[in-house]
Protein backbone atom coordinates (compact mmCIF):
# COMPACT_ATOMS: atom_id res chain seq x y z
CA UNK A 1 0.00 0.00 0.00
CA UNK A 2 1.28 3.40 -0.87
CA UNK A 3 1.31 6.11 1.75
CA UNK A 4 -0.44 9.22 0.65
CA UNK A 5 1.75 11.53 2.65
CA UNK A 6 0.57 15.09 2.79
CA UNK A 7 2.88 18.08 2.84
CA UNK A 8 3.36 19.25 6.40
CA UNK A 9 2.89 22.90 5.77
CA UNK A 10 -0.39 23.57 4.02
CA UNK A 11 -0.48 26.86 2.13
CA UNK A 12 -1.59 29.45 4.64
CA UNK A 13 -4.21 30.99 2.36
CA UNK A 14 -6.08 27.73 1.88
CA UNK A 15 -9.43 27.70 3.55
CA UNK A 16 -10.02 25.76 6.75
CA UNK A 17 -12.47 23.38 5.09
CA UNK A 18 -10.03 22.65 2.29
CA UNK A 19 -7.33 21.92 4.80
CA UNK A 20 -9.50 19.53 6.76
CA UNK A 21 -10.63 17.81 3.59
CA UNK A 22 -7.01 17.40 2.57
CA UNK A 23 -5.98 16.09 5.93
CA UNK A 24 -8.77 13.52 5.86
CA UNK A 25 -8.28 12.39 2.30
CA UNK A 26 -5.32 10.13 3.01
CA UNK A 27 -6.76 8.23 5.99
CA UNK A 28 -10.19 7.98 4.35
CA UNK A 29 -8.84 6.54 1.14
CA UNK A 30 -6.78 4.11 3.16
CA UNK A 31 -9.79 3.08 5.23
CA UNK A 32 -11.86 2.50 2.08
CA UNK A 33 -9.05 0.47 0.60
CA UNK A 34 -8.76 -1.58 3.79
CA UNK A 35 -12.48 -2.34 3.89
CA UNK A 36 -12.33 -3.28 0.22
CA UNK A 37 -9.49 -5.72 0.84
CA UNK A 38 -11.34 -7.34 3.75
CA UNK A 39 -14.57 -7.72 1.77
CA UNK A 40 -12.65 -9.15 -1.19
CA UNK A 41 -10.83 -11.70 0.94
CA UNK A 42 -13.95 -12.81 2.79
CA UNK A 43 -15.96 -13.06 -0.43
CA UNK A 44 -13.29 -15.12 -2.16
CA UNK A 45 -13.12 -17.53 0.76
CA UNK A 46 -16.89 -17.85 0.78
CA UNK A 47 -17.22 -18.53 -2.92
CA UNK A 48 -14.24 -20.85 -3.18
CA UNK A 49 -15.35 -22.86 -0.19
CA UNK A 50 -18.88 -23.30 -1.57
CA UNK A 51 -17.78 -24.13 -5.09
CA UNK A 52 -14.95 -26.54 -4.45
CA UNK A 53 -15.62 -28.57 -1.37
CA UNK A 54 -17.33 -31.72 -0.46
CA UNK A 55 -20.88 -31.54 0.85
CA UNK A 56 -20.72 -30.41 4.49
CA UNK A 57 -24.03 -32.08 5.11
CA UNK A 58 -22.18 -35.27 5.99
CA UNK A 59 -21.11 -33.55 9.20
CA UNK A 60 -24.70 -33.53 10.40
CA UNK A 61 -26.18 -36.69 9.11
CA UNK A 62 -24.48 -40.03 9.05
CA UNK A 63 -23.20 -41.60 5.84
CA UNK A 64 -26.15 -43.91 5.90
CA UNK A 65 -28.76 -41.15 5.99
CA UNK A 66 -31.38 -41.16 3.30
CA UNK A 67 -31.57 -38.50 0.64
CA UNK A 68 -34.69 -37.13 2.33
CA UNK A 69 -32.95 -36.51 5.66
CA UNK A 70 -30.07 -34.90 3.83
CA UNK A 71 -32.44 -32.59 1.97
CA UNK A 72 -34.11 -31.67 5.22
CA UNK A 73 -30.78 -30.81 6.85
CA UNK A 74 -29.81 -28.72 3.86
CA UNK A 75 -33.01 -26.74 4.11
CA UNK A 76 -32.45 -26.22 7.83
CA UNK A 77 -28.94 -24.88 7.27
CA UNK A 78 -29.93 -22.80 4.28
CA UNK A 79 -27.63 -24.73 2.00
CA UNK A 80 -30.40 -25.43 -0.51
CA UNK A 81 -30.71 -21.83 -1.67
CA UNK A 82 -28.84 -20.67 -4.81
CA UNK A 83 -25.26 -19.60 -4.18
CA UNK A 84 -25.98 -15.93 -4.72
CA UNK A 85 -28.74 -16.01 -2.09
CA UNK A 86 -26.44 -17.75 0.38
CA UNK A 87 -23.81 -15.11 -0.30
CA UNK A 88 -26.33 -12.33 0.26
CA UNK A 89 -27.44 -13.87 3.54
CA UNK A 90 -23.84 -14.27 4.57
CA UNK A 91 -22.99 -10.62 3.92
CA UNK A 92 -26.17 -9.45 5.65
CA UNK A 93 -25.22 -11.56 8.64
CA UNK A 94 -21.73 -10.05 8.75
CA UNK A 95 -23.15 -6.54 8.65
CA UNK A 96 -25.23 -7.29 11.74
CA UNK A 97 -22.35 -8.99 13.52
CA UNK A 98 -23.73 -12.48 13.01
CA UNK A 99 -21.02 -14.86 11.84
CA UNK A 100 -23.27 -17.91 11.78
CA UNK A 101 -23.21 -21.12 13.77
CA UNK A 102 -20.49 -23.72 13.86
CA UNK A 103 -21.57 -26.90 12.07
CA UNK A 104 -19.48 -28.90 14.47
CA UNK A 105 -20.29 -27.52 17.92
CA UNK A 106 -23.49 -25.63 17.24
CA UNK A 107 -21.98 -22.59 18.97
CA UNK A 108 -22.23 -19.03 17.65
CA UNK A 109 -18.97 -18.34 15.79
CA UNK A 110 -18.58 -14.74 16.92
CA UNK A 111 -18.63 -15.37 20.69
CA UNK A 112 -16.56 -18.53 20.26
CA UNK A 113 -13.77 -16.64 18.45
CA UNK A 114 -13.94 -13.80 20.94
CA UNK A 115 -13.72 -16.19 23.87
CA UNK A 116 -10.58 -17.77 22.47
CA UNK A 117 -8.95 -14.48 21.52
CA UNK A 118 -7.23 -13.78 24.89
CA UNK A 119 -5.36 -17.10 24.83
CA UNK A 120 -3.97 -16.39 21.37
CA UNK A 121 -3.21 -12.76 22.21
CA UNK A 122 -1.33 -13.71 25.37
CA UNK A 123 0.80 -16.25 23.51
CA UNK A 124 1.29 -14.16 20.36
CA UNK A 125 2.06 -10.93 22.19
CA UNK A 126 4.78 -12.42 24.36
CA UNK A 127 6.19 -14.29 21.38
CA UNK A 128 6.43 -11.13 19.28
CA UNK A 129 8.12 -9.29 22.15
CA UNK A 130 10.62 -12.09 22.73
CA UNK A 131 11.30 -12.43 19.01
CA UNK A 132 11.80 -8.68 18.61
CA UNK A 133 14.07 -8.26 21.63
CA UNK A 134 16.33 -11.19 20.80
CA UNK A 135 16.24 -10.42 17.08
CA UNK A 136 17.37 -6.86 17.70
CA UNK A 137 20.12 -7.86 20.14
CA UNK A 138 21.48 -10.54 17.82
CA UNK A 139 21.17 -8.29 14.76
CA UNK A 140 23.06 -5.45 16.45
CA UNK A 141 25.77 -7.77 17.77
CA UNK A 142 26.23 -9.40 14.37
CA UNK A 143 26.51 -6.02 12.66
CA UNK A 144 28.89 -4.50 15.21
CA UNK A 145 31.14 -7.56 15.15
CA UNK A 146 30.70 -8.29 11.47
CA UNK A 147 33.44 -10.29 9.89
CA UNK A 148 34.44 -11.83 13.24
CA UNK A 149 33.78 -15.40 14.42
CA UNK A 150 30.92 -14.05 16.59
CA UNK A 151 29.17 -12.81 13.47
CA UNK A 152 29.61 -16.20 11.83
CA UNK A 153 28.17 -17.99 14.87
CA UNK A 154 25.18 -15.65 15.09
CA UNK A 155 24.58 -15.95 11.39
CA UNK A 156 24.66 -19.72 11.62
CA UNK A 157 22.19 -19.60 14.52
CA UNK A 158 19.86 -17.22 12.70
CA UNK A 159 19.88 -19.30 9.53
CA UNK A 160 19.19 -22.32 11.69
CA UNK A 161 16.04 -20.80 13.15
CA UNK A 162 14.89 -19.85 9.66
CA UNK A 163 15.38 -23.35 8.32
CA UNK A 164 14.06 -25.41 11.24
CA UNK A 165 10.34 -26.18 11.01
CA UNK A 166 8.62 -24.33 13.84
CA UNK A 167 6.29 -27.16 14.85
CA UNK A 168 9.24 -29.52 15.02
CA UNK A 169 11.12 -27.15 17.34
CA UNK A 170 8.06 -27.15 19.61
CA UNK A 171 7.98 -30.94 19.73
CA UNK A 172 11.69 -31.24 20.39
CA UNK A 173 11.53 -28.63 23.16
CA UNK A 174 8.75 -30.65 24.77
CA UNK A 175 10.83 -33.80 24.48
CA UNK A 176 13.87 -32.14 26.09
CA UNK A 177 12.33 -30.01 28.81
CA UNK A 178 9.19 -31.94 29.69
CA UNK A 179 9.87 -35.59 28.86
CA UNK A 180 13.56 -35.79 29.74
CA UNK A 181 14.47 -32.99 32.13
CA UNK A 182 11.07 -32.59 33.82
CA UNK A 183 11.87 -28.87 34.09
CA UNK A 184 8.75 -27.50 32.43
CA UNK A 185 5.11 -28.62 32.27
CA UNK A 186 3.62 -30.65 29.44
CA UNK A 187 1.20 -29.53 26.73
CA UNK A 188 -1.86 -28.97 28.90
CA UNK A 189 -2.79 -25.48 27.72
CA UNK A 190 -2.67 -22.26 29.69
CA UNK A 191 -2.60 -23.75 33.19
CA UNK A 192 -1.79 -27.15 34.71
CA UNK A 193 -4.79 -29.47 34.86
CA UNK A 194 -6.93 -28.74 37.91
CA UNK A 195 -5.83 -25.15 38.36
CA UNK A 196 -8.46 -22.42 38.06
CA UNK A 197 -8.08 -19.39 35.83
CA UNK A 198 -7.67 -16.03 37.58
CA UNK A 199 -10.60 -13.61 37.51
CA UNK A 200 -10.79 -11.86 34.17
CA UNK A 201 -9.46 -8.33 34.00
CA UNK A 202 -7.39 -8.23 30.81
CA UNK A 203 -8.04 -11.83 29.78
CA UNK A 204 -4.29 -12.50 29.88
CA UNK A 205 -3.57 -14.95 32.72
CA UNK A 206 -0.19 -13.63 33.87
CA UNK A 207 -1.16 -9.98 34.38
CA UNK A 208 -4.59 -11.03 35.72
CA UNK A 209 -3.08 -13.34 38.33
CA UNK A 210 -0.58 -10.67 39.34
CA UNK A 211 -3.33 -8.07 39.63
CA UNK A 212 -5.19 -10.43 41.94
CA UNK A 213 -1.98 -10.95 43.91
CA UNK A 214 -2.11 -14.66 43.08
CA UNK A 215 1.58 -15.44 42.69
CA UNK A 216 1.13 -19.22 42.49
CA UNK A 217 -1.19 -18.98 39.48
CA UNK A 218 1.03 -16.38 37.81
CA UNK A 219 4.08 -18.63 38.19
CA UNK A 220 2.18 -21.63 36.87
CA UNK A 221 0.92 -19.62 33.89
CA UNK A 222 4.44 -18.39 33.11
CA UNK A 223 5.78 -21.95 33.23
CA UNK A 224 3.07 -23.05 30.82
CA UNK A 225 3.96 -20.18 28.53
CA UNK A 226 7.73 -20.67 28.28
CA UNK A 227 7.87 -23.41 25.64
CA UNK A 228 5.06 -22.20 23.37
CA UNK A 229 6.40 -18.64 23.50
CA UNK A 230 9.90 -19.77 22.56
CA UNK A 231 8.53 -21.90 19.74
CA UNK A 232 6.34 -19.16 18.37
CA UNK A 233 9.00 -16.46 18.73
CA UNK A 234 11.35 -18.44 16.49
CA UNK A 235 9.15 -17.35 13.60
CA UNK A 236 9.83 -13.65 14.11
CA UNK A 237 13.34 -13.85 15.55
CA UNK A 238 15.12 -14.85 12.33
CA UNK A 239 13.63 -12.23 10.02
CA UNK A 240 14.10 -9.48 12.63
CA UNK A 241 17.72 -10.41 13.28
CA UNK A 242 18.48 -10.41 9.56
CA UNK A 243 16.73 -7.12 8.95
CA UNK A 244 18.44 -5.38 11.86
CA UNK A 245 21.83 -6.73 10.88
CA UNK A 246 21.64 -5.52 7.31
CA UNK A 247 20.22 -2.12 8.27
CA UNK A 248 22.89 -1.68 10.97
CA UNK A 249 25.71 -2.72 8.63
CA UNK A 250 24.50 -0.14 6.17
CA UNK A 251 24.30 2.63 8.73
CA UNK A 252 27.65 1.71 10.33
CA UNK A 253 29.22 2.18 6.90
CA UNK A 254 27.38 5.42 6.33
CA UNK A 255 28.80 8.89 6.12
CA UNK A 256 26.76 10.07 9.10
CA UNK A 257 28.35 7.50 11.37
CA UNK A 258 31.75 8.61 10.10
CA UNK A 259 30.75 12.17 11.04
CA UNK A 260 29.73 11.08 14.54
CA UNK A 261 33.11 9.36 14.99
CA UNK A 262 34.94 12.43 13.66
CA UNK A 263 33.17 14.52 16.29
CA UNK A 264 34.43 12.32 19.11
CA UNK A 265 31.15 10.53 19.91
CA UNK A 266 31.83 7.30 21.82
CA UNK A 267 31.43 3.93 20.15
CA UNK A 268 28.63 2.58 22.38
CA UNK A 269 26.73 5.82 21.80
CA UNK A 270 27.18 5.37 18.05
CA UNK A 271 26.06 1.73 18.10
CA UNK A 272 23.03 2.15 20.30
CA UNK A 273 22.03 5.64 19.20
CA UNK A 274 23.30 6.89 15.86
CA UNK A 275 23.35 3.56 14.00
CA UNK A 276 20.59 1.69 15.85
CA UNK A 277 17.72 4.07 15.25
CA UNK A 278 17.78 3.62 11.47
CA UNK A 279 18.03 -0.13 12.13
CA UNK A 280 15.01 -0.11 14.41
CA UNK A 281 12.99 1.92 11.95
CA UNK A 282 13.69 -0.72 9.33
CA UNK A 283 12.07 -3.33 11.60
CA UNK A 284 8.81 -1.43 11.23
CA UNK A 285 8.88 -2.18 7.52
CA UNK A 286 8.55 -5.88 8.28
CA UNK A 287 6.10 -5.27 11.13
CA UNK A 288 3.10 -6.58 9.22
CA UNK A 289 5.06 -9.67 8.27
CA UNK A 290 5.82 -10.17 11.94
CA UNK A 291 2.13 -10.28 12.76
CA UNK A 292 1.51 -12.60 9.82
CA UNK A 293 4.22 -15.07 10.84
CA UNK A 294 3.01 -15.08 14.41
CA UNK A 295 -0.58 -15.73 13.38
CA UNK A 296 0.44 -18.48 10.99
CA UNK A 297 2.71 -19.87 13.67
CA UNK A 298 -0.09 -19.89 16.22
CA UNK A 299 -2.05 -22.23 13.94
CA UNK A 300 0.88 -24.66 14.08
CA UNK A 301 2.00 -24.16 17.65
CA UNK A 302 -1.28 -24.02 19.55
CA UNK A 303 -2.16 -27.57 18.57
CA UNK A 304 1.15 -28.91 19.86
CA UNK A 305 0.79 -27.30 23.26
CA UNK A 306 -2.95 -27.85 23.71
CA UNK A 307 -3.36 -24.08 23.72
CA UNK A 308 -7.08 -23.18 23.62
CA UNK A 309 -6.69 -20.32 21.17
CA UNK A 310 -7.98 -19.28 17.79
CA UNK A 311 -5.30 -21.16 15.87
CA UNK A 312 -6.40 -24.49 17.27
CA UNK A 313 -10.04 -23.69 16.57
CA UNK A 314 -9.15 -22.84 12.98
CA UNK A 315 -7.25 -26.06 12.42
CA UNK A 316 -10.09 -28.18 13.73
CA UNK A 317 -12.52 -26.23 11.58
CA UNK A 318 -10.36 -26.60 8.49
CA UNK A 319 -9.89 -30.32 9.00
CA UNK A 320 -13.64 -30.83 9.28
CA UNK A 321 -14.93 -28.30 6.70
CA UNK A 322 -16.69 -26.23 9.35
CA UNK A 323 -17.32 -23.27 7.02
CA UNK A 324 -18.83 -20.72 9.38
CA UNK A 325 -15.84 -21.03 11.70
CA UNK A 326 -13.39 -20.85 8.79
CA UNK A 327 -15.17 -17.74 7.54
CA UNK A 328 -15.02 -16.15 10.97
CA UNK A 329 -11.34 -16.96 11.24
CA UNK A 330 -10.58 -15.50 7.82
CA UNK A 331 -12.47 -12.35 8.64
CA UNK A 332 -10.63 -12.03 11.93
CA UNK A 333 -7.20 -12.53 10.39
CA UNK A 334 -7.89 -10.24 7.44
CA UNK A 335 -9.15 -7.47 9.71
CA UNK A 336 -6.27 -7.79 12.11
CA UNK A 337 -3.78 -7.82 9.29
CA UNK A 338 -5.22 -4.81 7.52
CA UNK A 339 -5.52 -2.83 10.76
CA UNK A 340 -1.91 -3.60 11.67
CA UNK A 341 -0.77 -2.52 8.21
CA UNK A 342 -2.59 0.79 8.49
CA UNK A 343 -1.31 1.42 12.02
CA UNK A 344 2.27 0.62 11.09
CA UNK A 345 2.10 2.95 8.15
CA UNK A 346 0.88 5.78 10.35
CA UNK A 347 3.54 5.04 12.97
CA UNK A 348 6.23 4.82 10.34
CA UNK A 349 5.40 8.16 8.81
CA UNK A 350 5.44 9.67 12.30
CA UNK A 351 8.72 8.25 13.58
CA UNK A 352 10.79 8.23 10.41
CA UNK A 353 11.45 11.84 9.45
CA UNK A 354 12.48 10.82 5.95
CA UNK A 355 9.01 9.50 5.21
CA UNK A 356 7.03 12.55 6.25
CA UNK A 357 8.71 14.78 3.68
Amino acid at each position, binding site marked *: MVALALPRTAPSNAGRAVRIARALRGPLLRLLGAVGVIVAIVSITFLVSRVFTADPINLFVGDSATEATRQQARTQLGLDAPLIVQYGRFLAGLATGNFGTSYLSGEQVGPELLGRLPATVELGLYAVIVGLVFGIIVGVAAAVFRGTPLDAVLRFFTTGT*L*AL*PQFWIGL*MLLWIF*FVNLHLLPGPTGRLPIGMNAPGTITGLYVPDALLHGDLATATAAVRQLILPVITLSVGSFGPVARQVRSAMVESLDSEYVRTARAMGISRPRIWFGYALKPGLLSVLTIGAGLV*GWTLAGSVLVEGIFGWPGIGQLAITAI*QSSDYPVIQGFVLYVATLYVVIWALLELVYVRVDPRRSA
Partner: protein
Amino acid sequence: MTAPTIGFPRLIRPTRSRLGAAGRSWALWTGVAILALLIVTSIVSTFWTPYSPTASGTGALQAAPSLAHPFGTDGLGSDVLSRTMAAARTDVSITVVVVLMALVVGTVWGSLAGFFGGAFDYVTMRILELLNSFPSLLLAVLVIAVAGSGIANVIFVVAVLPLPDYVRLARAEIRSKKEYQFAEAARLVGRGPFGVLFAHLVPNSLRPLLTYASVNASYVASTVGALGFLGLGIQPGSAEWGSMIAQGQDAILSGQWWISGFPGLAIFLLAAAFHLISDAIADLRDQGSAA
Protein backbone atom coordinates in the same frame (compact mmCIF):
# COMPACT_ATOMS: atom_id res chain seq x y z
CA MET B 1 41.37 20.32 -14.96
CA THR B 2 39.33 17.18 -14.65
CA ALA B 3 35.73 17.48 -13.62
CA PRO B 4 35.29 17.58 -9.86
CA THR B 5 34.42 14.11 -8.70
CA ILE B 6 32.60 13.57 -5.48
CA GLY B 7 35.32 13.12 -2.91
CA PHE B 8 36.63 9.84 -2.07
CA PRO B 9 36.08 6.91 -4.41
CA ARG B 10 33.83 4.18 -3.12
CA LEU B 11 36.12 1.31 -3.94
CA ILE B 12 36.57 0.37 -0.33
CA ARG B 13 34.19 -1.91 1.41
CA PRO B 14 35.18 -1.96 5.05
CA THR B 15 36.23 -5.28 6.51
CA ARG B 16 34.34 -8.07 4.93
CA SER B 17 37.77 -9.60 5.57
CA ARG B 18 39.17 -13.05 5.11
CA LEU B 19 36.48 -14.73 7.10
CA GLY B 20 33.89 -13.29 4.71
CA ALA B 21 35.47 -14.74 1.57
CA ALA B 22 36.20 -18.09 3.16
CA GLY B 23 32.75 -18.22 4.76
CA ARG B 24 31.11 -17.55 1.44
CA SER B 25 32.59 -20.43 -0.46
CA TRP B 26 32.17 -22.67 2.57
CA ALA B 27 28.46 -21.82 2.72
CA LEU B 28 27.98 -22.35 -1.00
CA TRP B 29 29.65 -25.75 -1.10
CA THR B 30 27.97 -26.99 2.06
CA GLY B 31 24.60 -25.98 0.64
CA VAL B 32 25.27 -27.64 -2.69
CA ALA B 33 26.60 -30.79 -0.99
CA ILE B 34 23.52 -31.15 1.25
CA LEU B 35 21.22 -30.61 -1.68
CA ALA B 36 23.09 -33.17 -3.77
CA LEU B 37 22.88 -35.67 -0.92
CA LEU B 38 19.11 -35.21 -0.65
CA ILE B 39 18.59 -35.50 -4.39
CA VAL B 40 20.70 -38.67 -4.55
CA THR B 41 18.75 -40.08 -1.61
CA SER B 42 15.44 -39.44 -3.30
CA ILE B 43 16.65 -41.08 -6.51
CA VAL B 44 18.07 -44.09 -4.67
CA SER B 45 14.83 -44.47 -2.71
CA THR B 46 12.88 -45.11 -5.91
CA PHE B 47 14.53 -48.51 -6.31
CA TRP B 48 16.09 -49.29 -2.95
CA THR B 49 15.29 -48.61 0.69
CA PRO B 50 16.38 -50.78 3.65
CA TYR B 51 12.78 -51.92 4.16
CA SER B 52 9.64 -51.16 2.24
CA PRO B 53 8.56 -47.68 3.33
CA THR B 54 4.93 -48.77 3.31
CA ALA B 55 5.36 -52.10 5.09
CA SER B 56 4.36 -52.19 8.74
CA GLY B 57 5.79 -54.56 11.29
CA THR B 58 9.34 -54.60 9.91
CA GLY B 59 10.48 -54.61 13.53
CA ALA B 60 9.14 -54.04 17.02
CA LEU B 61 6.68 -51.15 17.42
CA GLN B 62 8.31 -47.81 18.29
CA ALA B 63 11.76 -49.38 18.60
CA ALA B 64 14.61 -47.03 19.37
CA PRO B 65 17.35 -46.51 16.74
CA SER B 66 19.51 -49.62 16.41
CA LEU B 67 21.76 -51.26 13.84
CA ALA B 68 18.80 -52.97 12.20
CA HIS B 69 16.77 -49.75 12.19
CA PRO B 70 19.19 -46.77 12.32
CA PHE B 71 16.31 -44.28 12.66
CA GLY B 72 14.11 -46.62 14.75
CA THR B 73 10.59 -47.72 13.89
CA ASP B 74 7.26 -45.96 14.19
CA GLY B 75 3.97 -46.88 15.85
CA LEU B 76 3.14 -49.37 13.10
CA GLY B 77 6.59 -50.92 13.16
CA SER B 78 7.58 -49.30 9.85
CA ASP B 79 11.24 -48.43 9.37
CA VAL B 80 11.70 -44.66 9.91
CA LEU B 81 14.86 -44.52 7.77
CA SER B 82 13.08 -46.07 4.80
CA ARG B 83 10.14 -43.75 5.20
CA THR B 84 12.37 -40.70 5.56
CA MET B 85 14.20 -41.70 2.37
CA ALA B 86 10.97 -42.28 0.48
CA ALA B 87 9.64 -38.94 1.75
CA ALA B 88 12.72 -37.19 0.33
CA ARG B 89 11.35 -38.03 -3.09
CA THR B 90 8.04 -36.34 -2.29
CA ASP B 91 9.39 -33.26 -0.53
CA VAL B 92 12.40 -32.57 -2.75
CA SER B 93 10.47 -33.01 -5.95
CA ILE B 94 7.54 -30.88 -4.78
CA THR B 95 9.96 -28.15 -3.75
CA VAL B 96 11.79 -28.21 -7.06
CA VAL B 97 8.63 -28.34 -9.17
CA VAL B 98 7.00 -25.54 -7.19
CA VAL B 99 10.00 -23.24 -7.43
CA LEU B 100 10.45 -23.87 -11.15
CA MET B 101 6.79 -23.20 -11.81
CA ALA B 102 6.76 -20.00 -9.81
CA LEU B 103 10.05 -18.88 -11.36
CA VAL B 104 8.91 -19.46 -14.94
CA VAL B 105 5.40 -18.11 -14.58
CA GLY B 106 6.50 -15.16 -12.43
CA THR B 107 9.32 -14.24 -14.80
CA VAL B 108 7.15 -14.38 -17.91
CA TRP B 109 4.29 -12.50 -16.28
CA GLY B 110 6.50 -9.85 -14.69
CA SER B 111 8.57 -9.40 -17.85
CA LEU B 112 5.49 -8.88 -19.99
CA ALA B 113 4.04 -6.39 -17.49
CA GLY B 114 7.31 -4.50 -17.26
CA PHE B 115 7.95 -4.54 -21.00
CA PHE B 116 4.54 -3.57 -22.33
CA GLY B 117 3.22 -1.53 -19.39
CA GLY B 118 -0.25 -0.07 -19.87
CA ALA B 119 -3.44 -1.67 -18.68
CA PHE B 120 -1.92 -5.12 -18.28
CA ASP B 121 0.74 -3.68 -15.99
CA TYR B 122 -1.89 -1.79 -13.99
CA VAL B 123 -4.02 -4.87 -13.43
CA THR B 124 -0.91 -6.84 -12.48
CA MET B 125 0.03 -4.35 -9.81
CA ARG B 126 -3.47 -4.35 -8.30
CA ILE B 127 -3.49 -8.15 -8.13
CA LEU B 128 -0.10 -8.09 -6.42
CA GLU B 129 -1.37 -5.65 -3.83
CA LEU B 130 -4.34 -7.85 -3.04
CA LEU B 131 -2.21 -10.99 -2.68
CA ASN B 132 0.25 -9.09 -0.55
CA SER B 133 -2.32 -8.05 1.98
CA PHE B 134 -2.66 -11.51 3.45
CA PRO B 135 -0.17 -13.64 5.41
CA SER B 136 0.99 -16.32 3.02
CA LEU B 137 1.06 -19.52 5.08
CA LEU B 138 -2.45 -18.75 6.28
CA LEU B 139 -3.53 -18.22 2.73
CA ALA B 140 -2.09 -21.62 1.85
CA VAL B 141 -3.85 -23.29 4.76
CA LEU B 142 -7.16 -21.67 3.86
CA VAL B 143 -7.01 -22.39 0.16
CA ILE B 144 -6.16 -26.03 0.84
CA ALA B 145 -8.92 -26.12 3.42
CA VAL B 146 -11.49 -25.04 0.92
CA ALA B 147 -10.03 -26.56 -2.24
CA GLY B 148 -9.18 -29.88 -0.65
CA SER B 149 -5.84 -31.61 -0.09
CA GLY B 150 -3.77 -33.62 -2.54
CA ILE B 151 -0.40 -33.16 -4.18
CA ALA B 152 -1.70 -31.13 -7.12
CA ASN B 153 -3.44 -28.61 -4.87
CA VAL B 154 -0.43 -28.31 -2.60
CA ILE B 155 1.86 -27.65 -5.54
CA PHE B 156 -0.55 -25.13 -7.00
CA VAL B 157 -1.05 -23.19 -3.78
CA VAL B 158 2.55 -23.13 -2.67
CA ALA B 159 3.61 -21.99 -6.13
CA VAL B 160 1.05 -19.20 -6.24
CA LEU B 161 2.08 -17.73 -2.88
CA PRO B 162 5.50 -16.36 -3.83
CA LEU B 163 4.35 -15.45 -7.34
CA PRO B 164 3.90 -11.74 -6.49
CA ASP B 165 7.55 -11.50 -5.48
CA TYR B 166 8.76 -13.10 -8.70
CA VAL B 167 6.47 -10.91 -10.79
CA ARG B 168 7.61 -7.77 -9.00
CA LEU B 169 11.31 -8.63 -9.31
CA ALA B 170 11.06 -9.52 -13.00
CA ARG B 171 9.00 -6.43 -13.73
CA ALA B 172 11.49 -4.12 -12.01
CA GLU B 173 14.45 -5.73 -13.77
CA ILE B 174 12.89 -5.45 -17.22
CA ARG B 175 11.77 -1.88 -16.65
CA SER B 176 15.28 -0.87 -15.66
CA LYS B 177 16.85 -2.57 -18.66
CA LYS B 178 14.43 -1.98 -21.48
CA GLU B 179 16.11 1.23 -22.64
CA TYR B 180 19.60 -0.24 -22.54
CA GLN B 181 21.74 -0.22 -25.63
CA PHE B 182 21.73 -3.96 -26.19
CA ALA B 183 17.95 -3.90 -26.29
CA GLU B 184 18.03 -0.95 -28.65
CA ALA B 185 20.56 -2.74 -30.84
CA ALA B 186 18.40 -5.87 -30.98
CA ARG B 187 15.47 -3.72 -32.04
CA LEU B 188 17.52 -2.10 -34.78
CA VAL B 189 18.53 -5.43 -36.31
CA GLY B 190 14.88 -6.21 -36.68
CA ARG B 191 14.01 -8.31 -33.67
CA GLY B 192 10.35 -8.22 -32.78
CA PRO B 193 9.28 -7.16 -29.28
CA PHE B 194 9.07 -10.73 -28.00
CA GLY B 195 12.48 -11.51 -29.45
CA VAL B 196 13.99 -8.50 -27.71
CA LEU B 197 12.27 -9.40 -24.46
CA PHE B 198 12.97 -13.11 -24.20
CA ALA B 199 16.21 -13.41 -26.13
CA HIS B 200 17.94 -10.35 -24.71
CA LEU B 201 16.27 -8.75 -21.71
CA VAL B 202 15.14 -11.78 -19.71
CA PRO B 203 18.48 -13.64 -19.78
CA ASN B 204 20.16 -10.48 -18.53
CA SER B 205 17.75 -10.18 -15.62
CA LEU B 206 17.92 -13.67 -14.21
CA ARG B 207 20.41 -13.25 -11.38
CA PRO B 208 18.21 -11.52 -8.79
CA LEU B 209 15.40 -13.89 -9.73
CA LEU B 210 17.59 -16.93 -9.12
CA THR B 211 18.78 -15.53 -5.78
CA TYR B 212 15.20 -15.10 -4.74
CA ALA B 213 14.26 -18.53 -6.07
CA SER B 214 16.82 -20.04 -3.74
CA VAL B 215 15.44 -18.31 -0.63
CA ASN B 216 11.96 -19.14 -1.81
CA ALA B 217 12.89 -22.82 -2.13
CA SER B 218 13.72 -22.98 1.56
CA TYR B 219 10.36 -21.45 2.46
CA VAL B 220 8.59 -23.82 0.11
CA ALA B 221 10.24 -26.77 1.83
CA SER B 222 9.06 -25.50 5.24
CA THR B 223 5.57 -24.71 4.00
CA VAL B 224 5.09 -28.13 2.40
CA GLY B 225 6.21 -29.65 5.70
CA ALA B 226 3.84 -27.45 7.69
CA LEU B 227 0.90 -28.35 5.47
CA GLY B 228 1.72 -32.04 5.84
CA PHE B 229 1.96 -31.60 9.59
CA LEU B 230 -1.51 -30.06 9.68
CA GLY B 231 -2.84 -32.98 7.66
CA LEU B 232 -3.59 -30.69 4.73
CA GLY B 233 -0.96 -31.77 2.28
CA ILE B 234 -0.47 -35.11 0.74
CA GLN B 235 -2.75 -37.87 2.03
CA PRO B 236 -2.15 -38.30 5.76
CA GLY B 237 -0.09 -41.40 6.41
CA SER B 238 1.86 -41.25 3.16
CA ALA B 239 5.60 -40.81 3.29
CA GLU B 240 6.06 -37.07 3.60
CA TRP B 241 8.22 -35.42 6.23
CA GLY B 242 5.57 -33.08 7.62
CA SER B 243 2.95 -35.79 8.07
CA MET B 244 5.58 -38.16 9.50
CA ILE B 245 6.27 -35.55 12.18
CA ALA B 246 2.57 -35.33 12.92
CA GLN B 247 2.40 -39.12 13.24
CA GLY B 248 5.14 -39.17 15.84
CA GLN B 249 3.71 -36.24 17.79
CA ASP B 250 2.05 -38.31 20.52
CA ALA B 251 4.96 -40.73 20.84
CA ILE B 252 7.25 -37.84 21.75
CA LEU B 253 5.41 -37.32 25.01
CA SER B 254 6.25 -40.89 26.00
CA GLY B 255 9.88 -40.44 24.96
CA GLN B 256 10.05 -41.79 21.38
CA TRP B 257 11.64 -38.81 19.72
CA TRP B 258 12.96 -40.50 16.59
CA ILE B 259 9.66 -40.87 14.77
CA SER B 260 9.30 -37.08 14.46
CA GLY B 261 12.94 -36.21 15.01
CA PHE B 262 14.52 -37.53 11.82
CA PRO B 263 11.93 -36.18 9.34
CA GLY B 264 12.27 -32.79 11.06
CA LEU B 265 16.03 -32.84 10.59
CA ALA B 266 15.45 -33.72 6.95
CA ILE B 267 13.24 -30.64 6.43
CA PHE B 268 15.90 -28.60 8.20
CA LEU B 269 18.62 -29.92 5.87
CA LEU B 270 16.62 -29.13 2.75
CA ALA B 271 15.67 -25.62 3.92
CA ALA B 272 19.15 -24.86 5.25
CA ALA B 273 20.79 -25.97 1.99
CA PHE B 274 18.78 -23.45 0.01
CA HIS B 275 19.41 -20.74 2.63
CA LEU B 276 23.15 -21.28 2.44
CA ILE B 277 23.13 -21.21 -1.35
CA SER B 278 21.07 -18.04 -1.52
CA ASP B 279 23.22 -16.28 1.06
CA ALA B 280 26.30 -17.17 -0.93
CA ILE B 281 24.76 -15.95 -4.21
CA ALA B 282 23.61 -12.71 -2.59
CA ASP B 283 27.09 -12.09 -1.14
CA LEU B 284 28.72 -12.76 -4.48
CA ARG B 285 26.42 -10.20 -6.03
CA ASP B 286 27.31 -7.64 -3.35
CA GLN B 287 30.94 -8.25 -4.06
CA GLY B 288 30.38 -7.90 -7.79
CA SER B 289 28.56 -4.60 -7.54
CA ALA B 290 31.12 -3.19 -5.12
CA ALA B 291 34.05 -3.71 -7.46
